[in-house]
């Protein structure tokens, strides 16, 4: 296509069965932007219903978009779309990876990679600008991600960006990930690479991503963008009172005088970090104290880090000497959020304790090398339940049961992880296999786990997937969002807005402006019944989730619907994404047009889900929630103060109102023919019709 700014113009396709490497015109897919949108489109066009995740015919799409590598803030992410191994019916889903790999792909001249087929022996793909080679990876197979990365860099250059799988992916573990830059992972898709005998993709790119806007205009927009950013998850006020700040609230903006990156040599103070000091955005989020607790989270933090182009820095890197002496792994580790709570999730050591941070970082050392994914915490939770409830003892062969060092687990000794992580990554024994096959299959194998998933303690939403900012985050909004996808729902649009930390009344006002009703937003201690504002809020959340994952832009901080700027009355800019995209590509696109593109992508995903389920009644067969959502707590009714319990009839109303907002059929929740055609998905409507799924 005519080279626009942002895009590089071609997409790389690699067929590992034939060894054929080819290039396709990006223009074909421009209606879907890139990233996850491109991934859905490829799955729709090329993968037949009934295909399974580990079949050679399955595609895996490493999707980047027009903003990736453009240097726009927060544009470092990659959407990796495929049939999802960790779903019982292997429906389509996307894993999301940050780091520097996606930008490097753009510098190398590619707008995404489609991989299909299966190599006859282990290989890795070397992309050196427009030279693409399939190289032997037999020497890497059986080794972890750290070694694979190091050996590839030693082979072709230390500045290579490598995304690799570890032994978990090789062994077709359904909760395996692909990782780059040591701590950036896309959960779930590792096994798909393993099934294709694909160990890694290493990239070196020397080219340019063009910016269409003139330099001055682009610079002004960039600094405007930066001025609207708060901390990680778009908390726009500090967590503690600061001399410069009007407000403070429950945010990740932890920086303050006297709080340090304690293991920097010498220590670095995070300091005051006033909202107008753009040279300190990277200190605002000292996440060590959030992920590990005060004290240890400060003492051991070397620095923060994160993706290409992002000033927010949400990954916390630590140096813990005891990791070396006690467990024989490197003292330097790090991750963020659930990556950090994976290891500690097996134990009951309190936040802020040495035992807990050791467990967390040992967990990272092992999981990030084996390429094992926590399934947003569902794996450790189910594992601990299985042990504590006596299920494992009852089900496992005594010889196997006794070979596992349970004493360590009883004593909250992190060394237990050395056994459990390896056991799952290598599918050792019945227990190893049971968990390696993922939680949906674990439910099938042991109904006790399925029963556990219906309880609040399991934090399991549906289909054996973890809840992820669900009913506790915006009541019906979070609940509807958690019904939409085929994995734990990676939506932060709503939480990034709700977690601004601004006073509730001000947030109500802003909700009114955004969603047409202040009632879209409930106080976190008093939920109210469904209303139209909430339906609009849910729709907006989904639109921007899909847009961010397609552009690509980070949905872990965007959208910037609020801002730290008092001069703007703490308003952000809803049109920011469209302004940035227009400036980069040079094609003027309005907010409304961009949102229509988001809806196109979202409706395609919905159609794709129906197609792979071979089911049109998504309302009753897909958009579901586990029992606890409606039952917990037993002794209080829905909408009582302080409870997040949902009401069944109200949730049915919520579906009605949300489907109406989306142009989806009330009875089935399917996008109607009219809706599909409105968003340029005529061909998709025809496909659904052929399959008997069109309503």
């Amino acid at each position, binding site marked *: 296509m005519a080279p626009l700014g942002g895009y590089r113009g071609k997409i790389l396709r690699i067929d590992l069965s034939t060894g054929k490497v080819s290039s396709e015109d990006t223009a074909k897919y421009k209606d879907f932007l890139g990233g996850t949108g491109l991934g859905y489109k490829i799955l729709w066009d090329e993968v037949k219903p009934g295909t399974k995740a580990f079949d050679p015919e399955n595609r895996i799409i490493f999707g980047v978009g027009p903003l990736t590598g453009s240097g726009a803030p927060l544009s470092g992410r990659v959407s990796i779309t495929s049939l999802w191994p960790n779903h019982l019916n292997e429906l389509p889903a996307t894993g999301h990876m940050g780091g520097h790999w996606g930008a490097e792909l753009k510098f190398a001249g590619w707008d995404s990679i489609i991989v299909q087929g299966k190599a006859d022996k282990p290989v890795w793909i070397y992309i050196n600008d427009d030279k693409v080679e399939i190289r032997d990876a037999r020497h890497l197979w059986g080794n972890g991600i750290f070694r694979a990365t190091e050996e590839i860099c030693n082979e072709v250059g230390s500045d290579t960006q490598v995304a690799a799988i570890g032994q978990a992916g090789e062994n077709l573990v359904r909760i395996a990930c692909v990782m780059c830059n040591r701590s950036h992972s896309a959960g779930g898709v590792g096994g798909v690479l393993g099934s294709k005998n694909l160990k890694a993709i290493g990239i070196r790119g*020397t*080219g340019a991503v063009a910016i269409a806007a003139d330099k001055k205009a682009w610079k002004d927009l960039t600094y405007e963008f930066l001025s609207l950013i708060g901390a990680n998850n778009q908390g726009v006020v500090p967590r503690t009172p600061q001399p410069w700040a009007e407000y403070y609230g429950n945010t990740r903006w932890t920086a303050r005088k006297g709080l340090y990156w304690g293991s920097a040599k010498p220590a670095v103070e995070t300091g005051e970090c006033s909202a107008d000091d753009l040279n300190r955005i990277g200190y605002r989020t000292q996440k060590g104290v959030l992920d590990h607790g005060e004290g240890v989270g400060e003492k051991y933090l070397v620095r923060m*880090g994160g993706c290409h182009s992002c000033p927010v*820095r949400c990954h916390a890197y630590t140096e813990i000497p005891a990791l070396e002496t006690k467990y024989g792994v490197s003292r330097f580790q790090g991750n963020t959020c659930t990556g950090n709570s994976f290891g500690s999730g097996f134990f009951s050591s309190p936040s802020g304790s040495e035992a807990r941070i050791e467990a967390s970082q040992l967990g990272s050392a092992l999981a990030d090398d084996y390429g094992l994914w926590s399934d947003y915490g569902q794996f450790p939770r189910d594992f601990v339940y299985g042990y504590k409830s006596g299920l494992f003892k009852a089900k496992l062969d005594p010889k196997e049961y006794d070979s596992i060092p349970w004493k360590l687990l009883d004593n909250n000794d992190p060394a237990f992880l050395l056994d459990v992580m390896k056991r799952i990554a290598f599918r050792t024994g019945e227990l190893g296999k049971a968990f390696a096959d993922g939680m949906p299959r674990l439910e099938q194998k042991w109904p006790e786990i399925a029963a556990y998933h219906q309880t609040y303690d399991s934090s399991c939403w549906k289909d054996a997937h973890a809840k992820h900012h669900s009913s506790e985050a915006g009541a019906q909004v979070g609940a509807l969002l958690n019904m939409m996808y085929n994995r734990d729902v990676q939506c932060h649009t709503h939480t990034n807005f709700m977690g601004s930390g601004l006073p509730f009344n001000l947030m109500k006002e802003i909700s009114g402006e955004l969603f047409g009703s202040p009632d879209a937003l409930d106080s976190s201690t008093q939920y109210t019944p469904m209303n139209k504002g909430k339906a609009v809020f849910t729709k907006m959340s989904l639109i921007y989730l899909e847009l961010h994952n397609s552009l690509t832009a980070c949905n872990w901080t965007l959208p910037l619907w609020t801002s730290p700027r008092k001069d703007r009355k703490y308003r952000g800019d809803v049109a920011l994404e469209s302004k940035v995209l227009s400036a980069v590509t040079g094609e003027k696109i309005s907010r409304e047009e961009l949102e229509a593109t988001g809806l196109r992508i979202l409706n395609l995903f919905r159609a794709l889900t129906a197609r792979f389920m071979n089911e049109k009644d998504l309302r009753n067969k897909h958009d579901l929630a586990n029992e606890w959502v409606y039952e917990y707590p037993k002794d209080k009714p829905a909408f009582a103060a302080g409870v997040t319990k949902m009401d069944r009839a109200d949730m049915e109303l919520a579906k009605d109102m949300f489907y109406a907002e989306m142009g989806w059929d009330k009875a089935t929740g399917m996008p109607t023919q009219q809706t599909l055609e409105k968003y340029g998905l005529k061909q998709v409507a025809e496909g659904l019709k052929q399959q008997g799924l069109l309503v």
Partner: protein
Amino acid sequence: MNSDDSVIEMPPIELADASSSAMSRRDFLKIVGAGTAGLVIAQVVCVQVDAAPSAQADIAKPKGMVIGDPTRCTGCRRCEIACTSFNDGKNQPSLARIKVARNLNFGPDGAQYGYQRQTPGHFGNFLIVQETCRQCAHPVPCMMACPNGAIEVTGPVNARIVNTTKCTGCRQCQAACPWDMTVFDEQLKKASKCHLCNGEPECVKACPNAAIRFVPWQDRSKDIPKRWVVPAYLATPPNVSSTCGSCHK
């Protein structure tokens, strides 16, 4: 004439707010006391043979330089982005005149020694080493190597700058810089290097961790080079080197 004769005595420097690296050019020039009438620096040009204007023994000292602090760097590469996006209108790390990407994962030593060691890099001890141009004192390796005299000392801060109308794209300067700090624009077929953005470094303005600063110039040409190359005065093309004798007796 000894090149040291042209050293500018800088007044002691007091940075108003050491934590803020976003110093405006005006502030900066105020600090170094330049821009005032008495401080115009004479450029004494060596005897010219074959018109090689780069062979200037007594070239003006730079007034500033960009330095990095690896203990603050989080590897976001917004500095590289700003350098090329706001100077060249495209985002291209290979063209950035500040270098982070190449040290990001395995540090300046690279991946040759394995991983997770106590050496810099994201797979090592987490230190990320930003490399910046030293704006070298005479003999300026990149400048001396240029057969076309295309690298010139240019105000307001006397950065060593590629004059693209003179640059023929021969890449001699790239081979000459001991720190591998010159870059090459493959689209324009011209060399480039850090020009200090007319005294308002974009990279410094962009850094969200105040990990790079624009400071008064100091001679850091003694730092261990990234790569050992033939010393500039030997690698210099004949039309340039033949002028050396006029000073180096």
